[in-house]
């Protein structure tokens, strides 16, 4: 039996009995021992590996809320305002002007087969409030073949004139979601089902079809690995037969660099079918594939004005958001899965949907009391304090969308939520004060995957324009590091296997070139991830 001992400048363990160490011994993919140099002498046959001697080791990061769609989107060109690294380590510079966007579009189009339409993603018009983005802007870059540009929210798209013609909607009017220009003709901005339908119909496929492929899962894992993640969710997986097969295939490879936790999309199945599906899948897991949770979507997003808010609703007076399914049906689903002994991850962005879901969980607990259910509210961006106390009483975990502070903080401050609610936007410190199990997340591809960046958001609470939102809700660096490791592992019911460096757990380690505990907190996001170990296997760029 091979034992390897790594030593480092400092090992941050998340083990309260031994928070720090310098040496870690690995055998058979698991942690054999953590401790001092002296303590390692007991393992006489061990080999020593010094490659991380100048580095800092942490438990492998756990991303508790992201989507494999991240892996699918990198099949296409990226046009976002913020820079982003793809699966092959190529950094796509953020685009700060329309001209830069057009330039990138031309560059990217040159790499795509002439017969194919050009598909790009990530553009966010929110950052160009004075520009009218329409088909003419795209035509100026490319006019001889169809272009489809998904906005950052993946909900709205802008197409060029060639695509309008291909879809047969260059002349229509009076259809909601097909915006008209000054000349009374469609100007290229499309949303809603009808427009999506004709675009997907004309393309002959949907970009979302790729999500279940092994190639997507491979790419997803490479992106995760680069950001130091060793356990990652796919938090809305339909668990189709094809999808499950792909999950099994990739995780059977010993070199696959992450553990996957797919959460079953509740609304894809009736509760009875869903329960049966999940039990069927459970026996098909392995060390790198953990079935179990269910994901329920309740409302939309705050920046998209589709989240359900309590009075006084949206700061700028926009109408309240929409439910993803009838509220009673959402509650019924919670009751069903709770009773069946299954853990629920529940997307609720707005505080009204939080209220509905706390009601549902409270009723479920009255009917079928369950200890340690670990139902987790996801995003829960503007929970109020009474709701936080109630969540604590009900044993609910929170996985809070910390990245929002940076990416949409300015929008929330000025348009959607206003000053006071932004003081408790992402109420991280309050969750800790109430001892609520806490994780933080990126929701990739909605924002880029990167737990160190997410931790930076939780600690600094700065918006993209540099405004600090809610200083009383800042996490300390150790708290933020716990939220991206053991905290997230707890919400996935995997805290006995990953999330800390302790004897017996999987040897999942993230290697950093700087010490997150002693560097300036503002540097957290800039720390380089040198490598990860998953089950003792080293994964790095070499």
């Amino acid at each position, binding site marked *: 039996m091979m034992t390897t001992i790594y030593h480092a400048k400092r090992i941050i363990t998340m083990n309260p009995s031994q928070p720090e160490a310098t040496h870690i011994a690995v055998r058979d993919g698991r942690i054999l021992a953590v401790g001092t140099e002296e303590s390692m002498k007991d393992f006489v046959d061990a080999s020593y590996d010094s490659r991380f001697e100048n580095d800092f080791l942490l438990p492998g990061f756990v991303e508790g809320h992201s*989507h494999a769609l991240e892996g699918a989107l990198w099949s296409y060109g990226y046009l976002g305002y913020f820079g982003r690294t793809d699966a092959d380590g190529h950094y796509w510079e953020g685009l700060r002007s329309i001209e830069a966007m057009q330039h990138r579009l031309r560059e990217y189009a040159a790499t795509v087969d002439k017969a194919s339409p050009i598909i790009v993603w990530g553009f966010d018009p929110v950052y160009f409030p004075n520009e009218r983005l329409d088909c003419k802007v795209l035509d100026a870059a490319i006019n001889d073949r169809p272009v489809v540009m998904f906005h950052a*929210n993946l*909900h709205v798209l802008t197409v060029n004139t060639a695509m309008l013609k291909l879809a047969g909607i260059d002349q229509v009017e009076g*259809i909601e979601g097909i915006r008209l220009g000054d000349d009374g003709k469609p100007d290229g901005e499309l949303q*809603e*089902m009808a427009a999506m339908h004709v675009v*997907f119909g004309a393309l002959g496929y949907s970009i979302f079809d790729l999500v279940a492929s092994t190639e997507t899962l491979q790419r997803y894992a490479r992106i995760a690995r680069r950001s130091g993640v060793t356990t990652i969710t796919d938090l809305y997986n339909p668990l189709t037969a094809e999808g499950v097969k792909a999950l099994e295939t990739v995780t059977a490879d010993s070199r696959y660099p992450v553990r996957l936790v797919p959460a079953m999309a509740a609304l894809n199945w009736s509760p009875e079918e869903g329960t049966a599906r999940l039990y069927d899948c459970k026996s098909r897991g392995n060390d790198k594939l953990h079935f179990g949770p269910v994901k329920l979507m309740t409302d939309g997003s705050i920046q998209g004005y589709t989240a359900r808010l309590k009075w006084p609703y949206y700061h700028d007076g926009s109408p309240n958001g929409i*439910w993803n399914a009838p509220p009673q049906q959402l509650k019924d689903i919670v009751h069903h899965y709770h009773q069946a002994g299954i853990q629920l991850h529940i997307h609720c962005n707005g505080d009204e949907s939080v209220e509905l879901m706390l009601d549902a969980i409270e009723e479920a607990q009255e009917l079928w009391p369950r200890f340690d259910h670990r139902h987790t509210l996801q995003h829960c961006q503007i929970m109020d304090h009474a709701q936080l106390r109630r969540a604590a009483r009900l044993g609910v975990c929170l996985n809070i969308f910390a990245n929002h502070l940076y990416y949409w903080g300015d929008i929330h401050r000025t348009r959607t939520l206003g000053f006071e609610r932004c003081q408790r936007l992402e109420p991280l410190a309050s969750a800790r004060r109430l001892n609520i199990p806490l994780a933080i997340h990126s929701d990739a591809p909605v924002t880029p995957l990167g737990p160190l960046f997410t931790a930076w958001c939780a600690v600094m609470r700065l918006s993209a324009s540099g405004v600090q939102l809610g200083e009383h809700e800042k996490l300390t660096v150790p708290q933020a590091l716990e939220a991206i490791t053991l905290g997230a592992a707890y919400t996935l019911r995997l805290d006995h296997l990953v999330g800390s460096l302790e004897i017996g757990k999987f040897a999942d380690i993230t290697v950093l070139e700087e010490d997150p505990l002693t560097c300036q907190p503002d540097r957290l996001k800039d720390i380089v991830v040198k490598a990860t170990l998953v089950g003792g296997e080293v994964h790095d760029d070499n």
Partner: protein
Amino acid sequence: MTTIDYTLIPLTVIGGFLGAGKTTYLNRLIQGGLPKDALIIVNDFGDINIDAALIDYRDDSIIQLSNGCVCCTLGGTLAEQLAQALRIRAAPGAILIEASGVANPARIADIARISRRLRLAEVVCIIDGSRARQHAENPLIGEAWQTQLAAADKLLVNRLDPADRQESEKWLKQFNSWAHIEYEIERTPDSVRTQPSPRLLKPKAKRLSSHGHWHTFSLSGRTRIDKERLETLIAAYQEVLFRAKGFLLAEHSSSTELLQFSGGRLHWQSALRAPQETRLVFIGIAGERFSHFEQAVQGLLRKSASSEIVLTSEPAAK
């Protein structure tokens, strides 16, 4: 448009709130005969009643719509699924879409308005006449309900006392002044019983588990139940009933009551924090006797339900 191209596939959208009777309506259309190879898209397979009479209906002609995420289109959406269906199948003779209880049917109808292959046949909105005012004023779903009404070409009202029609019509017109209003012909209580609406008194009788020699069934709904009759039933079948638990919305009582039955003893208490509906779970010894009990309990629900229809159709606004 001056000429209608009859080679276009007609699309019908069926809207209406949860429990309004969309599935019942759809079932009736299926039984009444649909064009050859009609494609039906429903929200929740669990709700559609594919019984023996429909066995000829091809299974793959019903698509269960998987709800995507409203904020980021993760997973399938109606638009994608419909596009995919039209790519891979021979053209269906008609398409019927059962909209989700919170969807805006107008957005679905738009698909037919711009598609080269579809034409809009009709947008129907089913309305539960006994609960319409409640739905309209509900702070959580009132807006969605009103939007659904406004999108319809035809309003189909059920569970309404004929005496209330005039009043109801006036009230409905404020949400949609142009739609054609039709009433479902009231059935005798007998026929109501054979066609329970899907959600209101859905005797789910969910077979939660049937493993070993245990059998479990559950009931839920907003119908009020005669408490004494339930007590009588439990007493009569207690030799096969191990455990019963849950909330009961009892007749002639304003609060929900918590029922506990174990060790042969029945215990009631009022429940302070409980859903305003009946939710009961029964666990017993699987077998004929327990099946009888299950049927008897369901019968209780139906009896109560028909009495509810009478109750709620009493002149509320007179």
